[in-house]
């Protein structure tokens, strides 16, 4: 083991964390818009959101990653930076899944709640904001935290095409120099586990906690 390699893995770990957070931020923002669009009473909006979800979920993340990284240069534009390309591809992926997860959570709020709010004279947006979303949020927290685990793990796909220095990419580079795949990929695996396991535990704990009082 070489301390320079360990340091490189730790830098990669930081790269993974940054990419995960950016993905969650942008994927979450767009996913929220997608979820709302998906249940829009305007058919065209709802269909457009459904198409976005279908197409994005129908493509492997690796292919999305390749399109985002190589796509601009194919059409004669400057390439995105590796981080921008990876964030872009992961945002597409995460927004489609989060959009679908959150749509389910919004629709899981009982219909009579909509009706009660309707009868009190709330507009559609007021109903959503004051009555439905606060209840949907409780339902959404466990699956959302669970999906964050997927995001963290899937950032590793960025290593295959875009060359952003995240954990898997750095492990690959070190392996190319040392030919000790078991050691360095093993350490990388432990680092992924160190992030993902607490998230999984948290997700299960939240599920138990929020299920009890359906407040």
């Amino acid at each position, binding site marked *: 083991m070489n301390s320079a390699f360990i340091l490189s893995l730790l830098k990669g770990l930081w790269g993974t964390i940054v990419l995960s957070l950016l993905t969650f931020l942008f994927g979450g923002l767009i996913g929220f818009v997608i979820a709302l669009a998906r249940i829009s009473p305007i058919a065209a909006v709802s269909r457009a959101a459904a198409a976005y979800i279908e197409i994005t979920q129908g493509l492997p993340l690796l292919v999305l990653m390749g399109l985002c990284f190589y796509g601009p240069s194919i059409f004669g534009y400057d390439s995105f930076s590796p981080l921008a390309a990876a964030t872009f591809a992961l945002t597409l992926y995460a927004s489609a899944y989060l959009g679908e997860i959150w749509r389910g959570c919004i629709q899981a709020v009982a219909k009579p709640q909509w009706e*009660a709010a309707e*009868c*009190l*004279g*709330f507009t559609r947006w*007021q109903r959503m904001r004051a*009555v439905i979303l606060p*209840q949907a949020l409780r339902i959404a927290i466990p699956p959302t935290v669970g999906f964050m685990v997927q995001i963290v793990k899937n950032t590793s796909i960025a290593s295959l095409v875009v060359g952003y220095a995240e954990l898997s990419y750095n492990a690959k580079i070190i392996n190319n120099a040392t030919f000790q795949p078991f050691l360095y990929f093993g350490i990388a695996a432990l680092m992924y586990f160190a992030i993902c396991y607490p998230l999984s535990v948290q997700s299960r704990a939240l599920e138990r906690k929020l299920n009890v009082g359906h*407040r």
Partner: protein
Amino acid sequence: MSAIVELKDVRKSFGNLEVLRGVTFNVNRGEVAAIIGQSGSGKSTALRCMDRLETIQGGSMLICGHQLHDDDVDLKSLRRDVGMVFQSYNLFPHLTVVQNIMLAPRMVKGIKAKEAREIADTVISKVGLREKMDYYPEQLSGGQQQRVAIARSLAMEPKLMLFDEVTSALDPQLTGEVLRVMEQLAADGMTMILVTHEMAFARKVADRVIYMRDGKVHEMGSSDILRTPATPELASFVSESAEH
């Protein structure tokens, strides 16, 4: 007395199933009307149409001056005029009692917090639950939740209140406390239309009893029709109800 509810030949279908097949009746200001009838007779649908939770397909419906079959009916002002209470209470579970009550006055009418709080104090006293102001719905009994739901509706100062089988989910003891609140409302002069299975309550409080059968008004009159029904169908419905 002037009619604030006028139904003329109202028709409504769900797919191929015609649920309302020409319903006609009026309710005057200050009256209590009880709609009774078997399950599937269309009574709840008729009530839900009055607050436009369902749209009617034929005939006309005039509620507090709003023509409901117009596409451009002003829903916001209709719902300021009409309050609705449901069988399943439908309180907002993430809000306390007082927040449940204050939410609509504040958001829909734009009333200031202090004033909304005073309204909440008044209506919660009417239903006798002042001490439960800061409880969450799940901490209350079914009867208490239903009384809060009534208070929440009252806070919007409706001209007409609709009650959709509001005691059907409650055991007899809790039913009593809800019915007492409704009786007081009736005594205060609120115009009320209730879909109910509580024959004793209808007999005691209703100015008008509407017996629905197969999507139509089969018999209608003062509460006397429950004692001396004119049609054999109502007679057998009343005697069946008495057995339960």
